[in-house]
């Protein structure tokens, strides 16, 4: 009797499942078309467009002040840094030198935003690997940052604090005190994060050697931010192309060479420490001065092409403006970090289990509105 299944008439088919657009692990409206063989992933195809709002096209209609507001809705966890990117591009094009005070405040709030974003990522990361408690710990600390933001600019998430030429208003009198309180508080909390999740043996088993991305692949996929730095690709925009007050501070670029999920995880934890150190260096010496320089009510950029990149919590955000000298950009393009980072998901997930896919995806820290725009 022929017992060889390959030679028999039995046919085996690939099992195809739709993960998303409504799925707890995709954190938004990302749809993954999975081809699986039992538990093993054979192919991952991301399907985008569920939250596409034509932000780039809308920008062509809007004035430069208005474009800043749209960028809040891209990567909503780094809204301040997105605003900053557009403002820096416009300021560079107009050759405006903003006051030192503005630069320092922008940097401090930018780093607070990064910590808040990483807090949320850490909570959700734990939840994706099944430890539900991390979510609440992460949100507890993020809440303090949101309160600081709320006091200063009236908004917690979509901040709109930057305008071309400076800031919308001056910082709240409590800002310095509360930021210092937060830094002192958070220094005791990161070790708590490590105790709860990082050192856990199950967590280590789930993350170590899973979703490996080599340095070459990271570069060729255009990865940036903690994803690329987890693979040993040193690419911190803050380090190589410092903007605002980042040239005045010293910090280490978090870098790991393993390229697995654990490396990406550790890079982000390390980044939280570095951000705290940046805030500490700046918070005591916020220079006195104006919080903005006067710009014309209608900003017209000179004819030409302008590009500025910044480091958001997820990686390199580039803003490209092609201006014809009118009050609207002729073309505005965002180079979002999430899009490139998502493109390597198939590469790192194939061959792993469904659980690995979820864990690897969590370490990419995807924000879907940033990918779709």
């Amino acid at each position, binding site marked *: 009797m022929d017992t060889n299944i390959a030679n028999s008439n039995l046919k085996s088919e690939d*099992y195809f*499942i739709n993960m998303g657009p409504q*799925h*707890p*692990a995709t954190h938004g409206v990302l749809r993954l078309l999975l081809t699986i063989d039992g*538990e093993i992933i054979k192919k991952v195809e991301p399907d985008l467009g569920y939250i596409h709002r034509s932000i780039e096209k809308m920008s062509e209609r809007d004035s430069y002040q208005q474009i800043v507001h749209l960028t809040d809705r891209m990567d909503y966890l780094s809204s301040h840094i997105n605003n900053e990117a557009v403002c820096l591009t416009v300021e560079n094009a107009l050759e405006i030198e903003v006051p030192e005070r503005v630069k320092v405040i922008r940097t401090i709030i930018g780093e607070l935003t990064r910590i808040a974003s990483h807090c949320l990522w850490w909570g959700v990361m*734990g*939840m*994706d*690997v*099944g*430890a*539900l*408690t991390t*979510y*609440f*710990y992460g949100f*507890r600390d993020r809440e303090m940052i949101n309160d600081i933001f709320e006091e200063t600019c009236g908004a917690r998430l979509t901040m709109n604090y930057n305008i071309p030429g400076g800031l919308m208003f001056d910082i709240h009198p409590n800002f310095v005190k509360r930021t210092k309180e937060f830094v002192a508080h958070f220094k005791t909390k990161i070790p708590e994060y490590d105790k*709860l*999740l990082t050192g*856990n043996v*199950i*967590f280590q*088993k*789930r993350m170590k050697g899973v979703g490996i991305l080599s340095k070459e692949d990271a570069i060729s996929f255009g990865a940036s931010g903690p994803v690329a730095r987890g693979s040993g690709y040193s690419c911190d925009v803050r380090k190589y192309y410092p903007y605002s007050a980042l040239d005045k501070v010293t910090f280490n670029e978090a870098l790991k060479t393993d390229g697995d999920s654990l490396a990406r995880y550790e890079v982000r934890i390390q980044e939280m420490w570095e951000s705290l150190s940046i805030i500490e260096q700046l918070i005591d010496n916020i220079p006195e001065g104006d919080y903005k320089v006067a710009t014309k009510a209608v900003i017209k950029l000179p004819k030409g092409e302008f590009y500025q990149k910044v480091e958001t919590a997820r990686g390199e955000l580039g803003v490209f403006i092609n201006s014809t000298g009118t009050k609207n950009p002729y073309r505005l393009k965002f180079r979002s970090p999430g899009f490139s980072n998502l493109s390597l998901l198939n590469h790192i997930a194939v061959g792993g*289990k*469904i*659980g*690995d896919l*979820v864990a690897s995806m969590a370490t990419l820290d995807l924000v879907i509105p940033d990918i779709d725009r």
Partner: protein
Amino acid sequence: MILSINIVENDIFNMLLIAAIYLGIFSVAGLFLVLLERKVAAWFQLRLGPNRVGPWGLLQTMADALKLVSKELTGTIKADKFLYNLAPYFVIISSLMALAVFPFTQEFQAFDINIGIFFLIAISSIGVIGILLGGWASNNKFALIGAMRSGVQTISYELSVGLSLVTMVLLTGTLQLSEIIEVQKSGWLIVQGHIPAIIAFMIYMIAGTAETNRAPFDMVEAESELGAGFHTEYSGMKFAYFFLAEFINMFIIAAIGTTVFFGGWLSPFGITESIPWLGIFWFLGKTFALVFLMMWFRWTFPRLRVDQLLTLEWKYLLPLNLLNIVLMALIVWLGLTIQI
């Protein structure tokens, strides 16, 4: 309050009365455990938990249960109707039947059979049929993956649950639960059997947690991977059956642990032997301590991956368990047990 009866000799009225009492215990315990889980989760997670319905939120699960009962039952058109509707009953009945053999006090035991431990293991295995049926009959891909995982997991970990209990049976020399407690009047079995008993207890708790499909072994309904796993397509009361059964199973695992390792209703200084009704507090106290331990696991640990789950069972727990049985046999043979 004499409920330890011989079923054959008693009339149908008594049987119905006992059944009603046990159904009452079942639903109250289920609702209370759900509330406890939510409160414990809240304590671990810097939250308050339910605190609006009734004092300290005590009636919250009642309200939830009422909502589930009054909900319309929806299902998929292409589901296998008969199996789809049958599955929740398998799960719930297996949990309910297991409750019958527990000695809650010296006198409060519905069904004292001489193969008690064997009966418990056998009955709790029926539940997995319900899960497999539910996942298969729902005609949903996520539910099917959940059900497949469940089959793999439960069948593997039943070995460890069974063998760790067999280790203790070597010590007691009987499978009858009332006699197992009788043996423990000279010290709880975890003390009597010292090292192998402690190892058996640890294996039992790990395997028991896996057997009830709870985190860190909640592969079956891994939320971030499979949505809701095998009960994705169930709604209303049918979902509630699965949900309640999970909590009752947790109670059963803890209750077996209490009976076999921690002396059941026995208290220090023989209090519960002179005043038997106090035994229920000792029994429930010990059981809830173990339930709390399982909740502690759930709200602290991340989830294992499915292949790691099987590695843990087949490569570590099972060989350790077999060695442990040999160790226990040696200790019993050489008379090295600790008698208080």
